[in-house]
């Protein structure tokens, strides 16, 4: 189900990953994301098609739109799913306490809105294309009490943390804000997102949008490189589902080594620039 956007392009993309049919709701009022209008469109679609589950990404938009749609339908809503199975009944797996434990949930309503955490599933390409069917969502004339006036890109980070395949994070070991560029350079060489511990965000060295942990972002990339991060429990919660973890820290007793697959007990100022060079060699 596509709301706004280019139906033909979306049908080609969705078809590539196995969709047979794309419903498309268009109209000038749907050109830019709006919670009220998009929620109205999706609720109308669910009433017409009665899906068991309405899946969407647990992105900034999905976290806004999912509950909105569920509230309009009076149905169950599940955020940040990392597993989904149907065996007579639906069961969705999701992390709670930022990944310190997991829960399997199901629901008693006819439909459920389920947000899928970015990177949680492998995208398997299948040759195919989806046919397009226009859907009149009845949003023409619907007014919204909140309207987006402008959008501004943030400075710095080019890769979004929660969607990145590789994350390089820095902690207190970087000693000062001027040294965060060591982390950014290694991240750039890997095409990675740059993350940070709560300690250096609270110290004002790095913007909050970089924070990984229970009070920041939860990430699960293929590779997580922790530089000068001791591994407080609330930080580990936010990154321990990463597939491969590297720890670089002077303190051999740091808890980060307990969750790491590879560890280097050394000063990050010695290792990180050298690693940046080595990655450059491999990548070229």
């Amino acid at each position, binding site marked *: 189900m596509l709301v706004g956007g280019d139906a033909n392009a979306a049908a080609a993309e969705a078809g590539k990953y196995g969709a047979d049919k794309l419903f498309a709701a268009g109209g000038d009022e749907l050109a830019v994301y709006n919670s009220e209008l998009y929620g109205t469109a999706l609720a109308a679609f669910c009433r017409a098609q009665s899906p068991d589950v309405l899946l969407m990404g647990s992105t900034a938009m999905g976290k806004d739109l999912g509950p909105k749609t*569920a*509230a309009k339908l*009076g149905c169950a*809503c599940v955020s940040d799913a990392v597993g989904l199975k149907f065996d007579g009944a639906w069961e969705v797996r999701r992390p709670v306490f930022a990944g310190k434990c997991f829960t399997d949930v199901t629901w*008693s309503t006819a439909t459920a809105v389920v947000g899928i955490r970015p990177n949680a599933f492998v995208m398997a390409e299948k040759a195919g294309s989806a046919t397009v069917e226009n859907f009149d969502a009845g949003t023409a004339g619907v007014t919204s*009490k909140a309207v987006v*006036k402008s959008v501004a890109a943030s400075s710095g980070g080019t890769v979004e943390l929660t969607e990145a395949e590789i994350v390089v994070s820095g902690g207190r070991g970087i000693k000062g804000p001027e040294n965060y560029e060591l982390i950014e350079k290694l991240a750039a060489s*890997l095409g990675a997102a740059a993350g940070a511990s709560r300690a250096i965000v609270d110290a004002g060295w790095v913007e909050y949008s970089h924070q990984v942990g229970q009070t920041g972002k939860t990430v699960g990339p293929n590779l997580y490189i922790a530089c000068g991060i001791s591994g407080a*429990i609330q930080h580990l919660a936010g990154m321990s589902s990463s597939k491969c973890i590297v720890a670089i820290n002077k303190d051999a007793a740091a808890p980060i080594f*307990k969750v790491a697959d590879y560890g280097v007990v050394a000063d990050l100022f010695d290792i990180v620039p050298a690693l940046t060079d080595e990655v450059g060699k491999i990548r070229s």
Partner: protein
Amino acid sequence: MKIAVCVKQVPDSETRINLAAPAAQLDESGFTRVLNPYDAYAVEEAIKIKEAGGEVEVTAITAGPAAVKETLKKDCLAVGCDKAVIITDPELIGADEMALATAMAAVIKRDGYDLVLTGIKAIDNDSGQLGVLLAEQLDMAHVSTVTKLDLGDGNLTAEREIEGGKEIVEASLPAVLTCQKGLNEPRLPSLPNIMKAGMKPMEEVSCADLGIEVPASLVTVKLYSPPHARGECKLIDAEDPAAAARELARLLNEEAKVI
């Protein structure tokens, strides 16, 4: 202006959770419980609006057992909220956010508020749905993940965090906002103010008092520890940093195949 702040008491972020076997619910009896850190931004923002002048009343609303009173007193009333409402229904303990939103919306409708503030999510169940669900049930505007707020006369302008940037959103009042880190720096309560907070009104209501039934839509099948078992950490000899970096890069490329 009347402001409602919807808060939750949660286990502290340093809490360790070890489940020996899958369980239907978590035994939280030994946990240190605190105000949900994101709700602290909501409380602080409400108090800042009150301090900016005009006739402003701030009410903290929560659901939970008697133990939430301590958090309400210390982290809400002692820092400047005027009163608190606790929805003390056993059915709401461990309930999903649709149920919580229904109960809190009933209090908000009963008392009438111009602005409703809450955190972007509670750090225990991490769902982050409450604010949006409240807005829909109350037929109010909402802006989620707010990092900056300017209140106008009958309207507001808010900055909202999105992937790789921010949106500037205009909304009419009444409205629900979910508060993100960066919005403000929550203050700490002073000892005299904690003492005085005991004098502020704290109302306890049940769902029956509010004339509502709690909708149960989500069912927890089980809770369990993370399924990823990790092997030993492979330590790389760091005698020579350049050689260590080379070896690490080689392992990540050839063995782990992640770069």
